[in-house]
């Protein structure tokens, strides 16, 4: 079975490292790379075409602009946006339009989301 390929691009650094620490030793997940500079995201996604991209949610309730840009070109990819100050993350994916749901910002919540078993949390 192929591994779930994840690109980790959220910030701040501490949260990114904690996400990496959470998913790094999961046998069914492969970390394809870590992006420290947001301006690199588009290029690295184009090169690696991951199943998942993890980014930061800078403004609550507002879909990061990069989601629209990327999901048009990579509709198979899903994006998980993490807000360091909140206990829920937003999960974006493309069907016909871009849809989203809130999942829990916990180790289990993130791993479940990556494995397609996300549990939606109420806002």
């Amino acid at each position, binding site marked *: 079975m192929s591994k779930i390929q994840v690109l980790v691009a959220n910030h701040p650094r501490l949260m990114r490292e904690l996400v990496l620490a959470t998913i790094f030793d999961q046998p069914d997940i492969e970390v394809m790379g870590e992006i420290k500079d947001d301006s690199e995201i588009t290029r690295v996604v184009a090169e690696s075409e991951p199943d998942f991209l993890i980014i930061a949610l800078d403004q609550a309730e507002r879909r990061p602009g990069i989601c629209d840009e990327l999901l048009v070109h990579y509709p198979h990819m899903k994006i998980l946006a993490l807000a*360091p100050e909140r*206990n829920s993350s937003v999960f974006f994916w493309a069907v016909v339009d871009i849809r989203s749901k809130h999942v829990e910002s916990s180790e289990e919540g993130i791993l479940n989301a990556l494995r397609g078993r996300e549990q939606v949390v109420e806002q």
Partner: protein
Amino acid sequence: MSDQRDRVAVFLLAENRLLREALVRIFNKKNDIEMVGASGFTPLAVEEIAAASPDVLLMDSFTVELSHLEFIREVQRAVPGLKVVMIGMESEEQTFLQAVRAGAVGYVLKDASAQEVVTGVRAAANGEAVCPPQLCLSLLRYVARQWNQVPSFQVKASLGLTNREQQLVLLIGRGLTNKEIAMQLNLSEQTVRNHVHHMLRKVGASDRLQVVELCRIQGLAV
């Protein structure tokens, strides 16, 4: 580090569950650190922390809002000797200074690595302060501002000089004459002369420059 323990006892107070869980996992891998508790903020947080009796409280700046930094003082009263290390989720100078004023001995920025957080906790437990280089300057400026502030309570307490007299000392220290001081403070020259005379008597100085020197010794930035 407490005498009874050979490991640093750490309590983690963080609102974000991912931050909490992942940090606990990282700390649990360290042989010299013992996690004695981890939770989000609740009204019973002080009691929970006191019951766990940690050496270090590691908390994020989102957990306790700025207006509630009294929490740090409260928890330090409940756990004497507790060292507080804050993870600054905002890199604003104000948040950092408020944390320091409230009693935090360590501050780690959100852009720190997980390893730097661990190092910060160890350093705080060893009695060291932890301050990111980019915020050290803010701290030094803050101290300088406080130092320069007139009135100085130290000068008032030890030399008995009033606020107005301390203002005069600063101006004398800059080399101004009585006439120039009078113009600057909107006083008559005679009033300034009287103030200077009173100051000399109060502090037992033989001349005005000696008053300046005495105030400098007491910490007034003249």
